[in-house]
C-alpha cells in the first residue's frame, strides 16, 4: 500500500517536472501537459528498383523525428506534446504492395498522419488509399503533376512538380550553346517521367528545337542498346530524358560506353544522387534537375526578403546532422523527406490540434521557407495540394581542381556554384 503511494507520488513529481521543463509557461496557467504519441505511417522501398533514393528519403524522415524528439516533441498551444513515432513497412517498390500496406497502416496500425513512399507511381497508389480513407498525407518523392490534378482533398506535395524538371535544363542548354538545334528525348514510361516529357517536349519545340528521337522505355529496362543506336543515327546535339536511379545510371553508362557524342545530356533523378558517381567517367558533364542541394542557400534573410517566415533548421545544420547520423551526404531525396516532416510539424503547431480538418486548414494557409526552399500549396479545388512555391536547381558532374568528379549547381545563374560546361 505504501509502495503504491510512493510510486504515485513519484509519477506526479515526474509529470510536474516534465511539464516544467518542456513547456515553460504551462505551469503558471495551471495547465497539465499531456504527452501523446503521434503515429506517422509510410512505406519505403527498402528493396527493389527504388531502394537507393527511397532509403535517402527515409533517412531524412528519421532525422526529422530525431530532431523533434531531441527538442522535446511537438508542442501544441493547449499544452499537448506530440512525440512522433514511425510505423513503416517495405513496399519493395511495388504498387500493389503500397496499396495493401497503406490500407493496413490506416486500418490496423491506426496511424495519425501519413507520409508518402518514394517515386510518383507509388505515391499515386498511396494517395488513392489515403484519400479514400480521408487521411492527411504529405508527399515527398512524388512529383507527378497528374496525381495532383485529381481533385484530392488530403494530399500535400512538397516536391516541385514534374512539369518543371526539364524545362530549366532546356533554358540552361540554350544559354550555354545557342547553336544546339537537334535534341533526342528518351524517357522511362512511368507517370513521373511521362509528366516531365509532356511538358518538356512542347517547351523544347517552342524554343525552336527539333526533336529527332522521341522514345519511351519500360521501367526496369537494362539494355539501352536499341535506343542508343537510334540516338547515334540521328546525331542529336543534346539528349534529355531518363527516369529514375537504376535506369538513368545505366543509360548514362551505356551512352558513354557506346561513345555517343551529344554536347549536352540531362537526365532525371539519377545525377543528383551521390551513388551516380559509381559509373566513374561516364558521369562527367551529365546534368540533372534537383529539388535541393547541399550548396543551396535558403536562409532567414532570404525568407525575410520573400516576406514569409523561416521554419526549421538551416541547411548547414541539416547537412551536418545528417552526415553525423548516417555517415553519408544527404541528397535531395533526404531533404524532401525531412521537409515533409517539417511541413507536418508546422501544420500541427499552427492548428494546435491533431484534428485532420484543422491540420488541413493550416496546410492550406501555409506559405513558409525552410532550408529546403519555399513551401506553399495550391488551394484551387482542381489542383489542391500541388506544390506551387518551391523551385528547382540543376546540377552537373564536373571535375574539380583536384581532378575528382563532384556535383555543382550550374543553374539558375544566381544560385550557381560553378559554370556549366558542354560535354566533350
Amino acid at each position: 500500500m505504501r509502495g503504491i503511494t510512493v510510486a504515485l507520488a513519484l509519477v506526479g513529481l515526474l509529470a510536474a517536472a516534465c511539464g516544467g521543463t518542456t513547456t515553460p509557461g504551462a505551469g503558471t496557467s495551471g495547465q497539465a501537459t499531456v504527452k501523446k504519441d503521434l503515429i506517422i505511417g509510410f512505406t519505403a522501398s527498402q528493396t527493389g528498383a527504388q531502394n537507393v533514393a527511397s532509403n535517402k528519403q527515409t533517412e531524412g524522415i528519421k532525422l526529422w523525428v530525431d530532431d523533434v524528439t531531441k527538442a522535446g516533441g511537438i508542442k501544441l498551444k493547449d499544452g499537448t506534446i506530440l512525440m512522433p513515432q514511425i510505423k513503416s513497412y517495405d513496399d519493395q517498390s511495388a504498387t500493389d504492395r503500397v496499396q495493401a500496406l497503406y490500407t493496413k497502416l490506416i486500418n490496423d496500425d491506426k496511424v495519425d498522419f501519413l507520409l508518402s513512399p518514394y517515386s510518383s507511381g507509388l505515391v499515386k497508389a498511396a494517395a488513392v488509399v489515403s484519400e479514400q480513407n480521408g487521411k492527411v498525407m504529405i508527399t515527398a518523392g512524388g512529383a507527378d503533376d497528374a496525381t495532383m490534378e485529381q481533385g484530392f482533398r488530403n494530399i500535400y506535395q512538397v516536391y516541385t512538380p514534374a512539369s518543371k524538371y526539364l524545362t530549366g535544363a532546356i533554358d540552361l542548354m540554350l544559354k550555354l550553346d545557342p547553336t544546339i538545334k537537334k535534341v533526342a528525348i528518351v524517357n522511362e514510361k512511368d507517370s513521373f517521367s511521362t509528366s516531365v516529357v509532356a511538358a518538356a517536349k512542347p517547351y523544347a519545340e517552342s524554343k525552336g528545337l527539333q526533336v529527332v528521337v522521341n522514345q519511351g522505355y519500360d521501367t526496369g529496362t537494362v539494355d539501352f542498346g536499341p535506343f542508343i543506336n537510334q540516338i547515334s543515327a540521328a546525331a542529336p546535339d543534346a539528349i534529355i530524358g531518363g527516369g529514375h536511379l537504376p535506369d538513368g545510371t545505366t543509360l548514362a553508362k551505356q551512352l558513354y560506353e557506346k561513345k555517343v557524342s551529344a554536347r549536352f545530356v540531362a537526365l532525371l533523378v539519377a545525377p543528383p544522387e551521390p551513388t551516380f558517381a559509381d559509373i566513374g567517367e561516364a558521369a562527367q558533364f551529365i546534368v540533372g534537375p534537383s529539388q535541393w542541394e547541399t550548396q543551396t542557400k535558403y536562409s532567414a534573410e532570404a525568407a525575410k526578403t520573400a516576406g514569409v517566415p523561416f521554419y526549421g533548421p538551416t541547411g548547414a545544420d541539416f547537412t551536418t546532422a545528417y552526415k553525423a547520423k548516417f555517415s553519408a551526404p544527404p541528397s535531395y531525396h533526404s531533404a524532401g523527406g525531412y521537409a515533409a516532416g517539417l511541413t507536418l510539424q508546422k501544420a500541427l503547431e499552427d492548428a494546435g490540434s491533431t484534428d485532420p480538418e484543422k491540420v488541413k486548414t493550416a496546410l492550406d494557409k501555409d506559405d513558409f521557407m525552410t532550408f529546403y526552399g519555399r513551401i506553399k500549396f495550391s488551394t484551387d479545388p482542381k489542383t489542391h495540394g500541388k506544390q506551387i512555391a518551391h523551385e528547382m536547381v540543376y546540377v552537373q558532374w564536373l571535375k574539380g581542381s583536384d581532378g575528382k568528379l563532384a556535383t555543382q549547381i550550374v543553374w539558375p545563374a544566381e544560385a550557381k556554384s560553378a559554370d556549366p560546361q558542354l560535354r566533350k
Partner: protein
Amino acid sequence: MIRVRAPFLPALLVVLAIVAALPLAVNNNSLREELFLMFMLITLASSINIIMGYTGYVSFGHIVFFGLGGYFAFYLMQNFNAHFLVAALAGAIPASAIALVIGVPILRLRGAYFALATIGINEAMRTAINNFEPFGGAVGMFFNFSVYDTYGGARNAALLAYGVMVVVALATVTTSYLIRRSKFGLSLMAIREDQDVAMVVGIDPARAKVVAYVISSFFPALAGATFFFKNGIIEPGVAFDLLRSIESLVMCVLGGTGTVAGPIVGAALYEWLRGFLITTPALANFQLFLAGLLLLVVVLFVTAGLVGWLRNRYPVLRAYIQ
C-alpha cells in the same frame, strides 16, 4: 446405394454470405479489405476451375480477362462517366467476346501448347496495352476523384465494391456448381478424360470447350472491373500480372481441381497465408516459396487437392461436399 442430395449449394452460399457480412457487423475495415481480396481470389480460382478442373485445359494466362474487364470498365467510367455497375457489365461482355475469338483457335491446341499460348496471349495483351495510349499506355489510368462522388464519396464506393465483389464470387460459385451438375458439365469432364471418346459419344468438343472458356472469362472480367474501380488506378503490370494468374491456379489445385468447394478452400487458405506473411519483413517474399512447396506437394502426392483428398478418404462426405 442410397444417395442423399444434400443441399450443398444453399449451405455453401449461406456460409459465404455470413463470412461476407462479418466485417460489416463488427465494423472492421481491415478484415473487409482482406475479405475483398479473398472473394476476388475465389472468383478467379473458381473460374479457372471451370476450364482447368472440369475441361482439363490449364489456362496459365487466365488473368488476361481480369485485366481486360478492368481496363474496359475503367475506360468507360473515366471517359463517359458510366455508372460502375453499368461499366462492369459493359466491360465484361467485350472481354468474354475476346475469349470467344481467341478461344476458337487456341482450344484446338492440346496440353502444354495450350498453356503456352495462354501465357503468350496475356503477355501480348499486357505489352500491347503498355503502348496503347487511349488506355494511358504504361502509366495506366487514374480516376479523377470526383468519380466517387456519384456513390457518396470514396468510402462508400469501397463499400459498394465490396458488395459487388461478394455477389460476383457467389455468382461464380453458383455457376460452377450448376455446370458441374449439368449435362454440359458432364460433357466437359468427358472431354477432360478423353476428347476422342467424347466425340464418339456425340459431344462436340470444340463447341463445349469454347463455351466453357467464355463462361470462365466472364467472372474474372467482372472481378477486374470491381477491383480497379476500388483501386482508382489501373496499370498494365498490375492488370495482367501473370503471377496472380498462376497463384489463382495454385489455389485451385491446392483446394482440389474439378470440385466446387476446392477453389474456395484453396483461395481462403492461400489468402490467409499471404496476409500473414506480407507484413513480416523477413517472410515478405516467402509466400512464393510456400506457394511453390504447397503446389509441388499437391502435384506429387495429393493430386486431388484438399477437398478431393477428403472426398476420397471419407466417401461419406461425397454427398455433402461437391
